[in-house]
C-alpha cells in the first residue's frame, strides 16, 4: 500500500495511521445510490436515442434539442451556484460569448464549425478569468450585482458592434461540415434517413449534453468538487484546509463559462441565427430558476429543472396567454413544498434510508478507539456537570473569524 500512497500523495510530513479496520467495498448494485443513478442515466440516454424513431417530426426534435441545450446550461450554472455557492445573475453572457464567437468565426472567417469548438472554449475561459478575476474577491451579494451588470454589458455590446451584426445579429451560420461532407448532405442510417440538419443537431446535442452531465458529475465527486463544496459551505474553514478559495472560485466560474459557451455554440448552429435578444437577463433568471427548482448541487435535480423550464412553456402552449401564469404558480408551489428543490443534493434513495451504519469490529483494540475509555464514563461521570449546549457557553463569541 505504501508505494501506492506515495504515488497518490505529495510529500506530507504526517501520514495517517492505517485504518483500524478495512471498510468493505462500497455497494455498486442497481439498488445502491451510484448504481441506481447510472441505471437511470442509461435509461434516459436510451430514451433520447430512441426518440427520433418514435417521433421524428421537426417540431419534436427541435424542442428536444433546445431542451438539451438548456440542460447543458443548467449543468454549467450548477457548478457556479450549486457547488461553489456563487450567485451569478448574468450567466447567459457566457452563452452569448460562445454563440457569437462560433458565429463570427464560421461566417466572417469561414472556419469549419468543428474548428470553432476549441476557440469557443478558449474564449470562454478568458471571459471567465476576465469577469471572475476581479469580482470573485467580492462577497456574494456584490458578486450577484456585478454579474448582472456583466450580462447586460455583453448583450448591449453585441447590440452595438458591427462584427456582431448589431441588433439583427448573425445570420446564415453554416452547419457542421467535415471536408466535403456536411450535415446538409444527409445520411442513411439504421433505416432512418437523416435528411435535414435538424436531426443531426439533435444527436450532437445528445453527445454534448451527455459529456457535460458526466463531466460535471465527475468533477463534483473529485478533488476539485470537494474544494468547491467546501468553499460554498464555509469559506474560512476551506482556507484553513489549505484550499485557495479564490482560485477555487475562479475554477468553478471557468467551468461554468465553458459549459455555457459550448451550449451557445450548439444553439448558434441549431438556430443558424443569433441576435442580442436571445441573451436577455430573463434567460439568466430562467436558468438560475431551473437550478434552484431542481435542487442546487444535484445532477438529477438540475436536469429535471432544465427540462422543466424548457419544456413546460411548450407543454402549456394550449393555455396560450395563461401559460406563464400557470408556470409561475407551479414554481411557487414547488418551492413551498420542496424548498431544497425537486431532487435535493442530499437526497437518499428511499430504500437506502434505513441502512445500517458500518460498525466497529469487535476485534478493534479498545485503547485504539481514540482513547475514549468507556470505563470512565461510568457512575463517576454522572456526578460531574451535565453536558451543556456548547453554543450557550460563550455567548459573546459569535463569529469566529470576523473580517
Amino acid at each position, binding site marked *: 500500500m505504501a508505494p501506492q500512497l506515495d504515488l*497518490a500523495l505529495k510529500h506530507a510530513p504526517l501520514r495517517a495511521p492505517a485504518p483500524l479496520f478495512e471498510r468493505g467495498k462500497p455497494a455498486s448494485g442497481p439498488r445502491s445510490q451510484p448504481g441506481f443513478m447510472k441505471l437511470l442515466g442509461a435509461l434516459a440516454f436510451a430514451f433520447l436515442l430512441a426518440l427520433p424513431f418514435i417521433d421524428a417530426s421537426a417540431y419534436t426534435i427541435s424542442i428536444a434539442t433546445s431542451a438539451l441545450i438548456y440542460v447543458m446550461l443548467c449543468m454549467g450554472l450548477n457548478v457556479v451556484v450549486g457547488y461553489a455557492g456563487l450567485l451569478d445573475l448574468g450567466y447567459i453572457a457566457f452563452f452569448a460569448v460562445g454563440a457569437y464567437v462560433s458565429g463570427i468565426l464560421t461566417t466572417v472567417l469561414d472556419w469549419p464549425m468543428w474548428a470553432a469548438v476549441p476557440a469557443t472554449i478558449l474564449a470562454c475561459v478568458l471571459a471567465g478569468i476576465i469577469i471572475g478575476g476581479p469580482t470573485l474577491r467580492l462577497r456574494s451579494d456584490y458578486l450577484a450585482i456585478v454579474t448582472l451588470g456583466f450580462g447586460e454589458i455583453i448583450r448591449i455590446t453585441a447590440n452595438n458592434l458591427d462584427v456582431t451584426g448589431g441588433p439583427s445579429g448573425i445570420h446564415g451560420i453554416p452547419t457542421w461540415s467535415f471536408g466535403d461532407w456536411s450535415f446538409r448532405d444527409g445520411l442513411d442510417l439504421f433505416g432512418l434517413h437523416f435528411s435535414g440538419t435538424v436531426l443531426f443537431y439533435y444527436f450532437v446535442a445528445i453527445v454534448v449534453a451527455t459529456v457535460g452531465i458526466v463531466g460535471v458529475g465527475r468533477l463534483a465527486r473529485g*478533488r476539485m468538487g470537494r474544494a468547491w463544496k467546501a468553499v460554498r459551505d464555509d469559506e474560512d474553514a476551506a*482556507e484553513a484546509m489549505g484550499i485557495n478559495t479564490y482560485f477555487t472560485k475562479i475554477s468553478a466560474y471557468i467551468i461554468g463559462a465553458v459549459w455555457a459557451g459550448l451550449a451557445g455554440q450548439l444553439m448558434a448552429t441549431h438556430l443558424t441565427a443569433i441576435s442580442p435578444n436571445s441573451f436577455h437577463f430573463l434567460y439568466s433568471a430562467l436558468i438560475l430558476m431551473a437550478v434552484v427548482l431542481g435542487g442546487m448541487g444535484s445532477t438529477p435535480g438540475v436536469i429535471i429543472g432544465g427540462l422543466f423550464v424548457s419544456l413546460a412553456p411548450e407543454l402549456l402552449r394550449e393555455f396560450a396567454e395563461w401559460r406563464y401564469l400557470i408556470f409561475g404558480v407551479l414554481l411557487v408551489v414547488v418551492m413551498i413544498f420542496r424548498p431544497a428543490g425537486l431532487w435535493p443534493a442530499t437526497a437518499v434513495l428511499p430504500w437506502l434510508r434505513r441502512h445500517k*451504519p458500518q460498525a466497529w469490529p469487535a476485534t478493534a483494540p479498545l485503547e485504539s478507539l*481514540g482513547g475514549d475509555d468507556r470505563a470512565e464514563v461510568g457512575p463517576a*461521570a454522572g456526578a460531574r456537570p451535565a453536558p451543556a449546549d*456548547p453554543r450557550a457557553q460563550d455567548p459573546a463569541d459569535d463569529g469566529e473569524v470576523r473580517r
Partner: protein
Amino acid sequence: MSALLEVRDLHLRFGGVKAVDGLSFDVHEGEILAVIGPNGAGKTSAFNCISGFYRPTSGTIDFEGRSIMRVLPSTITRRGMARTFQNLRLFKEMTVLDNVKTAMHANLREGFFDTLLHTPRYRRAEEACAREAQGWLDFVGFEGDEQLYVTQLPYGEQRRVEIARALATSPKLLLLDEPAAGLNYGEKQGLMRLIRKIRDLGVGIVLIEHDMGLVMDLAERIVVLNYGKEIADGTPAQIKADPVVIEAYLGAEDDEALDDTTLTGMVATVDDEVPPSGDAGGRSA
C-alpha cells in the same frame, strides 16, 4: 533546536479595542502549549493572526524560521499548520468522509483531467485519499457512520471529525481553539488522551482551553492572557502559584487555591444555565 513557531510581540487592534496586546511565545515539535485566559482575552484573535485570517497590527510570526505574516491562510496550512475553530465549522452539506477528504486537497496528486477522464492517477489518488481519511477518523476514535452528513452527528462526534479534518492536512503544528467546549467529563478524558496521541506523532500543539483541570494535566507550558496582555508564561506548577494569574482568574476570591475543582466549578455554573442537551452525551457504545 529552533522553535516550530515563534511569536514575538504580537499586537492586534480593532479600532479602540486592543484584542492582542504584546504576545510572545514559542512552540516546539511535539510540545503541548496551552493558552488560557478569560473570555474576550484575545485568545481566538491571536489564533486568527497566527493562522493568517487577521493581519496583526504589529509583531512577527515565524513558522519554521520563515515569516508567515501577510501569507494566505491556505498557504500557511500547506506549510504545515492546521487549526480548528472555537465554534465548530465543518462543511455542513458534505459527508463525514468528504469533510476529512477535503483537508487532503493540497497533498493529493489529482489534476483536473485526471478527474474528468477517471485516469489511473485519479483512482489511485481517490483510494489513497479515502484510506488516509479513514485512518484519521479511526485515529480520533470516530465510531459513527462516515457516510452521514456531519449535521446528523452528535456534538461530541462533530468535534472529533473536526480534529480528524485538521490532522488530514498533515500538520506539524496544530492549533486547537477550545476543543473541549461542550463535551462531558468522559468525552473530555477521551479528548485529553487524543491530544497526547497527536503529540506523540511529533506534532506541536497549541491549545486554547477554559477547563483548568484539563490544561494543568495536559500542557507542558501555559501562556496566560488577560485583556490581550500576556500576564504569565510558565509550567503548570508555576502558573498555579502565580499571584497575578490567581488575581486575574479569581479576582477577590484569592484565598481559594487555583485548582481543578474551583475552576471546574466555575465552568459548571455556566453550564448549569442551559438544559443538558441530549446530543452532547450521545456516545453510547
